């Protein structure tokens, strides 16, 4: 059974695995090229002080993306936090 949550709902410290990136907009293509493909682990590092953007750790790279962009990324969370 698929548990689809999206990345924008996660709090700092959350870890999980990417399932898919919705659509093929420019944002989606950029996220895919950066490594947010299926079965890739990620970790949410922090939010910016004003709440947006979000910083995540993927394949050893720190990436900043806005909440609206993070909403395109479908994920599975690791063990309940």
């Amino acid at each position, binding site marked *: 059974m698929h548990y689809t949550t999206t990345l924008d709902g996660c709090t700092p410290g959350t870890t999980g695995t990417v399932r*898919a*990136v*919705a*659509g*093929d*907009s*420019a*944002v*989606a*293509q*950029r*996220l*895919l*090229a*950066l*490594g947010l*493909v*299926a079965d*890739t682990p990620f970790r949410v*590092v*922090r939010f*910016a*002080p*004003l*709440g*947006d*953007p979000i*910083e995540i750790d993927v*394949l*050893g*790279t*720190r*990436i*900043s*993306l*806005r909440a*609206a*962009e993070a909403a395109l990324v479908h994920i599975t969370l690791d063990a309940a936090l």
Partner: protein
Amino acid sequence: MNAPAVPTFALIGNPNVGKSTLFNSLTGLNVRTGNYPGVTIDITVGTWTIGGHPVQILDLPGTYSLAPQSPDEQVVYDLLAATLPAAPALTGIIAVVDAGNLQRNLYLVSQLLELHRPVIIALNQIDQAVRRGIAIDLSTLSQQLGVPVVPMQAHRGIGRDALATAARQIIAAPHAPPEPVLAWPEAVADALTARLAADQRLTRSAAIRAIVDHDKPAALLPDGTTSFAALEAGVRYGWARALLSHTVSQAAHVDTTRDRWDALFTHPVWGSLTFIAVMLLVFQALYTGAAPLMEWIDGGVGAFGQWIGGLLPDGMLRSLVVDGIIGGVGSVVIFLPQIMLLFACIAILEDCGYMARSAFLMDRIFSRVGLSGKSFIPLLSSYACAIPGVMATRTIEHRRDRLATIAVAPLMSCSARLPVYVLFIGAFIPAHTVWGVFNQQGLLLAALYSVGLFVAIPVVWLLKRTSLCGATPPFVMELPAYKWPAPRVVLARVLDRARDFLAQAGTIICAISIVIWALAYFPHSPAITKEFDSQRVRTLDANFPPEQFALIDRLEAAALLEDSYLGRMGHWIAPAVEPLGWDWRIGMATIASFPAREVIVAVLGTTFQVGSDADEHSASLIDHLRAATWPDGTPLFTIPTALSIMIFFALCCQCAATLVAIRRETQSWNWALFTFGYMTALAYLAALLTYQIGSRI
């Protein structure tokens, strides 16, 4: 397509892998900017000398994927795929790869290997990778990829020789690398085979692009895949993972240093404070570093002008050379230390990684306006000088955002406006204390500095809804590891900019200075000079003190200026500026300061018979301004008039050097003319409103 007379390599890689450092290390200062039609971004071309023979290197913009998403990226792709007519044929491709981030970097490499062109992998930042516990089996990696893999530390120059050897081998015996075997699903693999069979000259890369562009890729997707892009990404990363499982091992390692810095820089309170501290440091460096140099240049230009003036006979030629050319160009060149220093600071902040954090901090605010956090540093820099600010917009990937930022950068009150503010506030605004604590003069200065910012917001909003409208661009940005900025790279970039700036100053600005000089000099009516000469004779006869001659000189200069074409223009536009509370003299001085706003002080000095070397602190200029009247005797410089002048200068783009920089960054005059036009209109309106409302209060 041209066969290369000189072997040519393209340098390409992800952002933040040390590509510029490598390029700089190979080519030194031996660079120029390549001009390919259709490209708005810079492609720097440099010469690398291998064993006495020159090799051309094209520094392509950093990218994560070759799939073109913009016209600029399309041109880069065409250049690599050798379908760009104007570009030289490539002997090979040097892929700069970050050894510490191999998996992500291999995505681009897998695409490069499909271009049917020789590839060398420059495995950079190998020391960082080793420090993080990453062990790479170089020979197996090279063997599996089928291309040379050269470990490098570009910032120390390590690995250059091995790279040169690999390049030489390719020049001598070019051969295309084996294509990576990607696990495409059957439908896609069949479509690819069909296309490749139909056209023998097609590269695998072109075949994939053709499927994306022409076939119906959705029909080829297996169930559950959301898009072809997702499929391609999955397939390529799968290949990279498999490759790395044989060749790379990573010891568990936690990088705490960068997390500590990040915690500081992105903390709500400490991050903002640090940011303010950094900015204050930059502005302080500008003040202490640039100011003495600027004085030195000012003195030098003045001395040079005097020396040349001594060589030439009195008359038009001397005035042209000394006042027109040397004075005009000098007034722009004097800003060179400030521009270079500011640009060095920006380059250092960008290289060390801090710039990305500041964009991360500010993005929320900027996205409300329609821009992104990346516009922050360019706009902030424009508070010192818009020229480096406009140049700094190169870090803004998205073209529409970059144009919008460039359009409002001159609204940020730059340091050249300060003399105008100082003069008029000092002369006409009384130093009252407001609300017990604040000085009225200081408050007004702060207000003038903020006006540009507040006006910029609706301007950006409007632009993004009209000529620059379009989908909100993605703000997906890498936050690179911190690193010490390489001094040579920073120096090379600063010198490159300075050279550009001086070239522009020497040509366009020189031309504009001559035009303004001519307007202010001609017709230089002999009748006027004769009249003043007879006054001098009378003075001599009557034995008046020597100061009298100085006074006659100033009166003559003022009379000649009023009679000149510039003066006549002042009279001609007088009806248009009267609603602003200005008379013809203020109008004329404003026209004269369109190329460089600080000129107004000198022109006012001449007009009001104080002498053209008056500056904003000169007491006699202030006295004369206070005493100036309209023909009917009422004071000319009332507070509303002074305010309307200041607000006009706050909002108007009176800087030819900035317009030239805009033209250079946007590769056409259109945007520069647009910026000049809308700012002049805004300035006029604001001055009008200020005077009309102010004089009724």
